[in-house]
């Protein structure tokens, strides 16, 4: 059964269907897009049910020759990590379409173009996590920049074209560094038994430690730009500020995960030795990201920028979990990727509704929303609580796992990172207080509360946040074997607590 190709083909077919519709019938365009994303979500869930949780090998493997001249295959396959991220992407897509029902209005181009771009992007989001051929991965990794670029530049607000260009240039630069590394891998594979881009074959290449270090950096910098790690993060706040809320959700929720996913799948697998060499430096960068993102978030006056900076802090946690090289850290990081997508989605979507109703994204312009629009205010509050990892909500589990996983090997880093949690309370509670509570700011009196469509859109997101907060084990059962497998492959054993048994 070629599940993965089917998953990739569905949104593409949907985009063709949308393209065939008349431009004037916007409602039909949106309905087609929504139907497509719902079908994709259903298909993904159906596939996930057939996933063997305890099998650490790649599943749903497909392989067809694509460019035999270079030994390039169209090769797909997923493990627990990829499955979770594909699930995350395909659940978010219909939410974004439904939540942003009107956000394509007022763009440079038609509503139709917006949904074509979204659906093409969905195909690539699935492909980028499913690819097991390095060349295929790279092609999708780069090609998916183009729809996002047009989504930001065409439908965003404010300095949208500058933000779109900044995003593209940063990403392209990283991508080209990765390309240099990929070329080197390709050439080395040719010298060691035939040109190939197969991930498994490439991971067994022999190379000197200097080569490995350099190639690792090529990949890592590309991923660190994506996942924004301090100091390569500066494109993110601009992009998130200018993009529509829906685009931001896909950008921060899914695309940036390609960075952290790539660190696990490519950096660690292809260059285990170099990963160990660079771990101390990367952990420092991760800790800086956690604290720096949090402090800057506290200082933001703009709601969208604030959410972007909180994400930088969260990506610091994820990176730390990955490079702590413990299975808890890894499981936590993977779960964190999933949870971050939903808590950020909730923040961006509810924030986006607040902004579009108020006509301003400055936090100080809000006030008293709790009385005027109680449902919207509660949703924002819940999303904020999830972002600061309140126990009982999903992010808490993942943040806790990351910290535990890090502490067993790098206690100092974990302790400093814990300060990030305290700062998180500040960066969430300050806007909550300013925007939701206090006296009603003039101009807010007549804001309307969430309508039915918006309630339906946000409901699954909130449900996931709450349910996974109490009962994360279905996901963890999928994630844990994959995480332990990666750690074992790297030759690490989880540190045993030394003073517990006495």
């Amino acid at each position, binding site marked *: 059964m070629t599940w993965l190709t089917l998953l990739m083909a569905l949104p593409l077919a949907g985009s063709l269907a949308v393209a065939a519709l008349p431009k004037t019938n916007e409602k039909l365009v949106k309905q087609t897009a929504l139907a497509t994303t719902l079908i994709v979500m259903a298909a993904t869930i159906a596939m996930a049910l057939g996933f063997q949780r305890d099998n650490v090998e790649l599943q749903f493997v497909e392989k067809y*020759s694509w460019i035999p001249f270079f030994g390039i295959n169209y090769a797909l396959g997923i493990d627990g990590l990829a499955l979770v991220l594909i699930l995350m992407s395909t659940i978010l897509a219909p939410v974004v379409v439904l939540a942003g029902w009107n956000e394509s209005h007022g763009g*440079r181009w038609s509503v139709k173009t917006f949904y074509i771009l979204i659906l093409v992007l969905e195909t690539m989001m699935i492909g980028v996590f499913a690819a097991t051929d390095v060349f295929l991965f790279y092609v999708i990794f*780069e*090609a998916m920049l183009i729809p996002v670029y047009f989504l930001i*530049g065409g439908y965003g607000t404010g300095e949208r074209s500058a933000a779109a260009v900044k995003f*593209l240039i940063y990403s392209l630069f990283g991508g*080209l560094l990765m390309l240099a590394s990929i070329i080197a891998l390709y050439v080395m594979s040719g010298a060691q038994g035939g040109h190939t881009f197969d991930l498994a074959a490439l991971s067994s290449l022999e190379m000197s430690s200097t080569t490995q270090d350099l190639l690792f950096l090529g990949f890592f910098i590309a991923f660190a730009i994506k996942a924004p790690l301090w100091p390569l993060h500066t494109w993110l706040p601009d992009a998130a500020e200018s993009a529509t809320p829906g685009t931001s959700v896909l950008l921060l929720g899914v695309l940036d995960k390609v960075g952290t996913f790539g660190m696990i799948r490519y950096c660690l697998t292809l260059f285990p030795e170099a990963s160990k060499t660079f771990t101390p430096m990367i952990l420092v960068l991760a800790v800086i990201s956690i604290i720096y993102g949090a402090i800057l978030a506290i200082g933001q006056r703009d709601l969208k920028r604030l959410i972007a900076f909180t994400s930088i802090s969260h990506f610091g946690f994820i990176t730390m979990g990955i490079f702590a090289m413990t299975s808890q850290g890894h499981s936590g990081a993977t779960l964190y990727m999933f949870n971050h997508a939903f808590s950020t989605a909730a923040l961006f979507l509810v924030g986006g509704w607040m902004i579009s109703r108020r006509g301003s994204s400055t936090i100080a312009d809000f006030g008293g929303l709790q009385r005027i629009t109680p449902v919207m205010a509660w949703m924002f509050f819940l999303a904020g609580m999830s972002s600061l990892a309140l126990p009982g909500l999903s992010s808490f589990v993942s943040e806790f796992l990351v910290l535990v996983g890090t502490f067993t090997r790098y206690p100092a880093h974990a302790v400093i990172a814990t300060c990030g949690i305290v700062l998180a309370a500040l960066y969430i509670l300050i806007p909550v207080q300013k925007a939701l509570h206090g006296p009603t700011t003039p101009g807010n009196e007549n804001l309307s509360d969430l309508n039915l469509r918006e309630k339906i859109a946000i409901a699954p997101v909130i449900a996931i946040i709450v349910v996974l907060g109490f009962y994360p084990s279905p996901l963890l059962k999928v994630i844990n074997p994959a995480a332990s497998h990666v750690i074992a492959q790297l030759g690490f054993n989880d540190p045993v607590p030394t003073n517990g048994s006495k």
Partner: protein
Amino acid sequence: MVFTAPVLNYTLLSPILILLAGALIGVLVEAFVSKALRSITQLTLTIGTLVLSLAQVWKIRNAQSTTAAMGSVVIDGPAILLQASILIIAIISVFVIADTDHFTALAAALPGSDEERHAVQTGNQVTEVYPLTLFAISGMMLFPVSSDLITLFVALEMLSLPLYLMAGLSRRRRLASQEAALKYFLLGAFSSAFFLFGMAYLYGYSASVTFAGIRESVVGGSGNDVLLLIGIAFVSIGLLFKVGAVPFHAWSPDVYQGAPTPITGFMAAATKIAAFGAMLRIYYTVFANAQWSWSPLLSAIAVITMLFGSFVAIAQRDVKRMLAYSSIAHAGFLLAGVIALNKAGLDASIFYLFAYGVATVGAFAIVTLVRDSAGEVTDLNRWKGLGKRSPWVAATFAGFLLAFAGIPLTSGFIGKFSIFSAAYESGAKGVVIVGVLSSAIAAFFYIRVIVLMFFTDPVQDGTSVEIPSELTRIAIIFSIVVTIALGVYPAPLLDFITNLAIFIR
């Protein structure tokens, strides 16, 4: 004295001979056919000739011969591939050239003179551009198959002289066009002189003008190396001039800008194929054993060319000049394929040349469409908001730019990947790293044009997009389809190239 009649293999030479015959008939058409029928006759004749020649190339695709013309011409896989590429590019270029609105009615008249005005008013449009194009193409076809220095030089002049004239044919801004032609001619003559000078040294070194003879001396290593080095250096200057590599690039921005745009596209695409074709043959066969004499210098030139082209392109405000600098940068990338000096490098270079050529013709064809009442608008500031006014044209142009930038799923990416991996394989890691970095720089200015077209509001200044003529439309659609198809599924072409591309000596 006994005179031996030369033995010619007419079948193998037929692609070139057909072109020359077509060109000569074209001259007669120019003289004898009435002005009402002239244009259409010339167009039909030119396309017919090109298609016939292409069919002939296809027929002899598996031929291998060093004796087609008494040892002066070698027909082998690379020769066939390069000739076919030149012809395909030529056909789509002629489709764009067919829009006579770009060409002066009477090139012989002084700009702004009464004769010129009279010619325009009476509709007495001369169409000498067609036979000139055919002459140029026959030179280009001969250039990469030459196997002695004399033929090589004759081919060089055969392709250059018509191009000098064609650069001066622009209908609008005629002075700039003529300036471009003169500049191209003077600098071209200069480089020919260098080339000839180098040839003399190579003859002095090896006592032979044939490639085989020179190669033998290089392999044997018995000659005077100083002569060889001087010979290589000066011949290289001549070739590097033609491909527009730094520091021999000075002509290209002005000529690209001044020449009629359809000619610019043709020149940029087809001349590159011919010149790099000859270069590949010479470096891969004749000078291959002297690799250590030229490789370091050529690597330096490649690096400078890539960086210079990419950096200077950023500062350009004119779309044709920007494409000129971008073509300089691409010449640098292509030099990486020459430096590679391995089979993969040869395959990659041929693929790259074809892919780049097709995209270039398409891109310049689109430039011809953006006009105001005074002709083409090449000022980038006036391209603002093109995406709003004519989304399809702008989107297609964006496609070509993404291909030039080497974004995946376009032919440019496969080309870049293959050429860089070949160069890396041969150990030219520095060139590859600089190449990748300058790709990043280059991406910046390609993207800036996309921003201008799509993310900036149009200015109301009478700039409009012409509805393309049917032929131009075909050329553009062909180019974009090939550009994307070669990006998504290049396997058949790559296989075809790799099976054929083996130099015989």
